[in-house]
């Protein structure tokens, strides 16, 4: 479970997140959608402890991010908005470093590395420096690294960008399996169809404020004659 309560974050005079509150329950996949600059990445960075909110609380499975940050961070799997991380390291080195940081035992890490490498077609790339990877391969490596410790809470910032169809399909399947096993997933995306098909709930955010939080059914009930794309554009004031 992850919960964010009355969180506000301001950069200079710009309110990136404005009194935002929502809760992702165990067993749920929640899609985080909004226009560019709406505050999605800032919210995710607050959730993971990268940014400190000006006010409000973040709670991860009962651990307060301000008071018990280490315990909270241990149970998060986070994919950042850019996969260009530690490119001088080889894929296997990166995975092992992350596995050590999250205290993954030898036998379990071997099994997980094999699973991810097979699912994402990374086996031949593991012994190469990541600077030789394509953008998509880097993204796959970031996914593998974020999930190598099998965290109960997944916070994924546009995880499908750059993935080939097979890897995207696999990741979406993994998200579903993870939620069905009683864990929670929060992911941001600009692809509304993905959010529509995959998510149990949707959060629409605009200018730092949540303008909708609920299921797809609730949303379509509010706007019976429109599809998700039209609803989104209307709600965010971006109608063409």
């Amino acid at each position, binding site marked *: 479970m992850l919960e964010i309560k009355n969180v506000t974050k301001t950069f200079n005079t710009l309110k990136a997140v404005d009194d935002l509150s929502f809760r992702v329950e165990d067993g749920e996949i929640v899609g985080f959608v909004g226009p560019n600059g709406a505050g999605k990445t800032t919210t995710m960075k607050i959730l993971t*402890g*990268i940014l400190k909110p000006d006010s409000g609380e973040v709670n991860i499975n009962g651990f307060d991010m301000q008071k018990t940050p280490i315990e909270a961070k241990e149970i998060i799997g986070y994919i950042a908005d*850019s996969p260009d991380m530690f490119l*001088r390291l080889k894929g296997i080195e990166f995975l*092992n*470093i992350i596995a*050590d940081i999250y*205290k993954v035992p030898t036998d379990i890490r071997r099994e997980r590395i094999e699973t991810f490498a097979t699912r994402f077609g990374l086996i031949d790339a593991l*012994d190469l420096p990541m600077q*030789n990877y394509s953008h998509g391969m880097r993204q796959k490596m970031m996914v593998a690294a974020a999930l190598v410790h099998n965290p109960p809470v997944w916070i994924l910032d546009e995880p499908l960008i750059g993935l080939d169809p097979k890897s995207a399909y696999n990741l979406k399947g993994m998200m579903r399996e993870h939620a069905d096993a009683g864990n929670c997933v929060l992911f941001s995306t600009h692809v509304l169809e993905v959010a529509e098909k995959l998510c149990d709930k949707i959060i629409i955010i605009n200018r730092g404020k949540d303008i909708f939080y609920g299921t797809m059914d609730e949303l379509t009930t509010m706007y019976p004659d429109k599809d998700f794309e039209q609803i989104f554009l209307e709600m965010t004031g971006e109608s063409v």
Partner: protein
Amino acid sequence: MTTYLALSKAFIKSLQMSKSTDRRTRIILKFIIGLVVLFVFIPVAIFCAMMTYSLVTNLQFFHIQDLGVAMMLHTICLFTLFFGFNVIFSEFYFSSDIEYVRPWPVSAWQLVAAKFSVSYYVDNMMQVFMVVASLVGFFVAMKPGAMSYVASAVAVVTLPILPLTYCGIIAMVVMRFTKSINNKESVQRISALVLAGFILMFVIMFRVFAKNAVDAISFFITETSSPFVEYMNRIFPTIHFISRAITYGSVSDLLIYILINIIAVAFMLFLSEFLYFRGFENLVTNVKNKQRSFEELMKISVQGTQNRAYMKKEILILFRTPSFFTNCILPNFIWPIFALIILKMQTYDVSITALRIYNMNEPKIVGFFLIMGSVVFSLIMTALNSLASNAISREGKHFQFMKYIPIPYDTQWDIKILISCVFSFVGIWMYLLPFCIIIHTNFIYIIVSILLSILSITFVSYMGIYIDSIQPKLIWDDELSVLRENTNVALVMALALGIGIAIAFVGYSFYAFLKVRLLLVSLSLFVVLAILNLFVLWRTSKNAVRRIAEQEET
């Protein structure tokens, strides 16, 4: 022209550091910049001014004072040429924006012109100080007319153009016709070699002119039919004209100078149409190396501790990033080569046997120099390798990694300090200890030196990371800029140098003039260093972790 201006503006804007919103941090930053100017720029500027003044005054007797100005300007141009290669190669071919800009409908000359402007902007700051200082030295010596001031103003702004144009042309030719440079690392390796050559040349020149630099250079210019200046005039033909324009206020020389610069830049832009874009064809980023099988990789995938993993990450990045390796790691292990060169620069020879005999006769004096030397050298070396003073800045866009992993900030901090301490200590003592043993230094002196050296290293490491945490340079394009354009690194060097000199001066005064016993000097040093350590530890524990928590890369 509009495209060129728009591109230049965009490139320069992207280079600039993010401005801090915190008033207190801004004040600290200004203070840091002030210290860098005070301890680095001003001493270099004073040297340039005095050198020009002396040269011009000496050469005035022969009515060839313009050669004195020319000599200084040639040296500054050489300086720009050597340091410009890395900047030009990086900007022209390896900046992160280049792959986005190349598909744009812009001509090669427009792109090269914009990239050239960025290189000029990056490379110019230190040089402006040197040129202005040299010209001030000239004005004090000569008191020339108004036209000279106009020519000087033109020189201050335009002097780097010709050497950077050479760098630009050479870079485009190399990239177009050879496959020798196919990534940023190759550029940095070659730059390191060029820099080593430049230092060696400087050292040799210093040895040649050791006894009386100004007289020797004056003699060099006047009595050898000026081959050096003549030769240099062929390389930098603009200098002949600008030095005459500055010295004699000659308008025609000034116009010729400007014309040559325009022609040089126009020629480079003309060539760029044929060379620039085709130079990218030789770029290959995928280097195949021998790979291990999946089974072998699984065998090495065993659980280690969090701290070991974090340390491994730090060390791998330091060793695999050429700029970090050549600037932060290598100096710890190659300093004896430079020490040897400096030793060879002396007019008298120093042998091991002579040192051993001297140690037998005067063990206390050798002990004193060992103790003081190890402290001062440890302070300077730890600052010079900048392992601590760029420890946070080095993270760059990976800074957020520090914040979302479940390792406490103070543990990450301690690991970074440990790395600085270990590399500094090993680098210093892996040579100094055998040297002490070879010359039969008293064992007690060695132990005391090692203890004081450790205290010096920990002090500079803590101070370095503390200063870097105030305003880390997290936004950078290439790794070299985090070292070259980071005021934190320069500030820590200046502080360590200042403290080292103060300790050496006070220590020597106490021992040599006030005849204080070596034991007491050592104890005093211990107390001073312990207090300094406690001070930085106190400051660090109070503020540092909070700073990392509050630091945002945006």
